[in-house]
């Protein structure tokens, strides 16, 4: 019994660290989406720190809940996020380039207008 209480405490501490880190990454995504100067940079802020922050937050929740059904559903959310976030970012970026919202000066490599050989 004593031992179990110890592990619950450890899980809670790890969960707290995960929650704080995840919230910080989500916060940095919010800062990025406001402060970055062009569409593709903002898209980067949504696609990367946001997903990492969400995964950390959900890990924290799973460590707090000690429940397998809930953990399964949280894993499902993470899988959906990992599947959908690149697709959404790709579609936003492609639509941005096609409708001329991305200036050529922002791009280091422009493989869409100058295809590599």
């Amino acid at each position, binding site marked *: 019994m004593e031992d179990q209480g110890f592990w619950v405490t450890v899980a809670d501490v790890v969960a707290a660290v995960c929650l704080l880190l995840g919230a910080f990454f*989500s916060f940095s995504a919010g800062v990025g989406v406001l402060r970055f100067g062009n569409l593709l940079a903002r898209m980067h802020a949504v696609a990367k720190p946001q997903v990492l922050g969400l995964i950390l937050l959900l890990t924290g929740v799973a460590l707090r809940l000690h429940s397998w059904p809930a953990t399964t559903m949280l894993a499902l959310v993470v899988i959906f996020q990992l599947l959908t976030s690149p697709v959404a970012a790709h579609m936003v970026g492609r639509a941005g380039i096609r409708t001329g919202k991305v200036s050529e000066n922002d791009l280091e490599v422009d493989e869409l207008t100058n295809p590599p050989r």
Partner: protein
Amino acid sequence: MIVVSVVASVLLAVAAVLAIVRLERGPSMLDRTVAFDVLTTTLVGAIAIEAAWSRRTETIPILVVLALVGFVGSVVIARFASVEPEGEGRIRTAEEVAAEEAERQAALETERESVTDAEHHGGGANGEVR
């Protein structure tokens, strides 16, 4: 745990406010899509923090739904609404709205006056009535 929850909630709330500011500023529909994505994910994070704080599992299905619905929203906007006609996103001034309304009324009036066919003055019925 309460301190952790409060700090994380405040961080997420600030992130949501920053995303709303970007949502308002635009400048293009795609920027708003990106900002709305941040807002949805922040909402998922807020519900997750609530679940972690209260150790309750009832709200977890909401996270699954939000993760899917947020994706559909941004893909639909990127696919169908990314081309914006010039000036459509602008809010019109009161004078412009009044001018458009007057024009519409005038068009309606001329149409009403041009309708002078016999049907509108009790002309004879056409066709057989059983």
